[in-house]
């Protein structure tokens, strides 16, 4: 280890209470920053399209809440016949709250026999898929949903006026699947009183991402003069447009993240400046015995870096563990956004903490050696 780094560590350890309090402050700031970044990252994943996205959502035109989007189920074969369509699944959605909420309960009614074919990524991790197929009031509950509600196979629960029996717990590549309860389509249509033959939306898989726009236009054109005209969009664009309230809220949190960064910067700068001011004479002694200004500045920069890194490590990993344990889901207009910790956020959070620690120490590092040596020796 560099002798200068060793000196920096010993210097920080000299005043344990101040160091611990500073690290705690940095941790709190970096926790907030990482929490905001987790929300932003989760939102980006849910709304930014990539070349692998081949799903369209057919919704009732000019409707935004699942309770007001009602499309005839008999649109299904017409959509299936459109060139480029690979698969279609009708979905009835029932939610407890259309507004932006942290505790949204979403039921997705789908044809039970088509679910796994439509969505092969679904994996039953507890209970059984057969139980789901064999019982009309059965539900496959997403892992996060089950964890939040403390559900396991065999349990019964009631929400949004719908009583279901948990047949299995599912995991999936898609965060949305892990935060909803899949039930039989006919069961949900009856239980939520929208009636048989009416669905909230169709999810349509097309052969390739390049066909999304053409197929969407064709679907909307087909039903444009129907009683229930449609608005068809790629799944992520649909999410972005439908869950605007939630997106605006999350976008606002950027300012909180920025505030956290500024707070951390100020906290570390203040702490390092205090440390430097308390050691004016000692720094002068080190210079007298041959430590260059660069060496002194490096020690101070190391101290800021260590404070930033220690606080960043606790705050960023604390946020990641917190989100992992809590499985938070934001809901809006029937769309669910799972707040999932990511490696990107952890790495970028640690980098931000390092950069903040260094930036905050630049002025104190300069200040430590700016005075003439004789003045500092007489301080």
């Amino acid at each position, binding site marked *: 280890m560099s*002798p*200068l780094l060793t*000196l920096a560590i*010993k*210097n920080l*350890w*000299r005043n344990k209470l101040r160091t611990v309090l500073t690290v705690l402050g940095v941790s709190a700031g970096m926790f907030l920053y990482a929490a905001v970044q987790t929300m932003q990252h989760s939102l980006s994943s849910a709304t930014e399209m990539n070349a692998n996205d081949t799903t369209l959502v057919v919704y009732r035109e000019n409707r935004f809440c699942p309770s007001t989007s009602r499309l005839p189920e008999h649109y299904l074969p017409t959509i299936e016949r459109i060139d480029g369509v690979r698969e279609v699944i009708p979905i009835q959605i029932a939610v407890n709250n259309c507004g932006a909420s942290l505790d949204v309960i979403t039921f997705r009614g789908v044809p039970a026999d088509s679910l796994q074919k439509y969505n092969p990524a679904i994996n039953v991790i507890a209970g059984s898929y057969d139980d789901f197929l064999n019982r009309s009031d059965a539900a496959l509950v997403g892992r996060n949903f089950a964890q939040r509600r403390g559900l396991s196979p065999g349990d019964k629960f009631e929400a949004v006026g719908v009583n279901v029996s948990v047949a299995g717990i599912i995991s999936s590549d898609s965060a949305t699947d892990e935060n909803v309860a899949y039930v039989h389509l006919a069961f949900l249509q009856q239980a939520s009183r929208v009636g048989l033959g009416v669905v909230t939306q169709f999810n349509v898989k097309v052969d390739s991402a390049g066909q999304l726009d053409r197929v969407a236009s064709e679907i909307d054109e087909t039903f444009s003069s129907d009683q229930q005209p449609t608005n068809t969009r790629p799944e992520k664009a649909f999410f972005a447009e439908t869950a605007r309230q939630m997106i605006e809220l999350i976008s606002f949190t950027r300012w909180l993240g920025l505030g956290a960064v500024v707070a951390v910067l100020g906290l570390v700068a203040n702490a390092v400046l205090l440390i430097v001011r308390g050691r004016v*004479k*000692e720094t002068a*002694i*080190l*210079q*007298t*015995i*041959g*430590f*260059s*200004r660069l*060496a002194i500045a490096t020690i101070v920069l190391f101290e800021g870096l260590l404070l930033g890194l220690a606080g960043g490590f606790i705050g960023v990993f604390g946020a990641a563990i917190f989100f992992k344990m809590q499985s938070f889901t934001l809901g809006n207009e029937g769309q669910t956004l799972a707040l999932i910790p990511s490696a990107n956020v952890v790495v970028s959070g640690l980098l931000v903490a390092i950069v903040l620690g260094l930036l905050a120490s630049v002025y104190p590092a300069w200040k430590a050696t700016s005075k*003439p*040596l*004789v003045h500092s*020796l007489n301080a």
Partner: protein
Amino acid sequence: MSSLISIQSVSKSFTKGKTVITPLDQLTLEVARGEFLSLMGPSGSGKTTLLNLIAGIDTPTSGEIIINGENIAALSRAQLTKWRSVHVGYIFQLYHLVPILSAYENVELPLLLSKMSRAERREKVLAALDLVGLADRADHRPSELSGGQEQRVAIARAIVHDPDLLVADEPTGDLDRESADSILQLLNELTEKFGKTVIMVTHDPKASAAAHRSLQLEKGKFIEDGHLLNKQPAEQ
């Protein structure tokens, strides 16, 4: 003996408010290699200013300070730092050891920025501690040492990189008589056995008597028989 230090017409002045203060005025001084010189004088006489100039931690307003053939008055701040790290060992009145470091680590400080291996550093640090009689206190923190022992550690720190010149600012000023005598004896040994040149500022006539030569300063000039001189007194 050849001359290690040659100070030619050195002045130091600075402004305090609207007043120009000149702690050193056109001083000239020669110090031989291996000499133990003490500088005495009342507070404000300029002795510490002269010591700081010789140690390269301050620069003169005018004049030349030639040490080992190099005019250090012309060096930049960074060059002076490098020069000090090779040529000077500084001993402070209040020792100024780093409290969080052990005696060993304090003595090691001047070597940390050199290219020496850890083993080489260890050898030099232990030799320095042994020389000042504190090899068995290497792991002790300054708070666990007496004043005399702390000053010995400070001397070990000043000599560990084997400088030609040791400057000491009231090295016995904070010690009892017994400890002071042992420190003065150690400084004498360093000149006699190891050829170090020692310049010591002191208020203590007994300490001054331990040096090979003693000079009195007053108002920034040398003094002899009540007369102020720019040059050191001829008769030593």
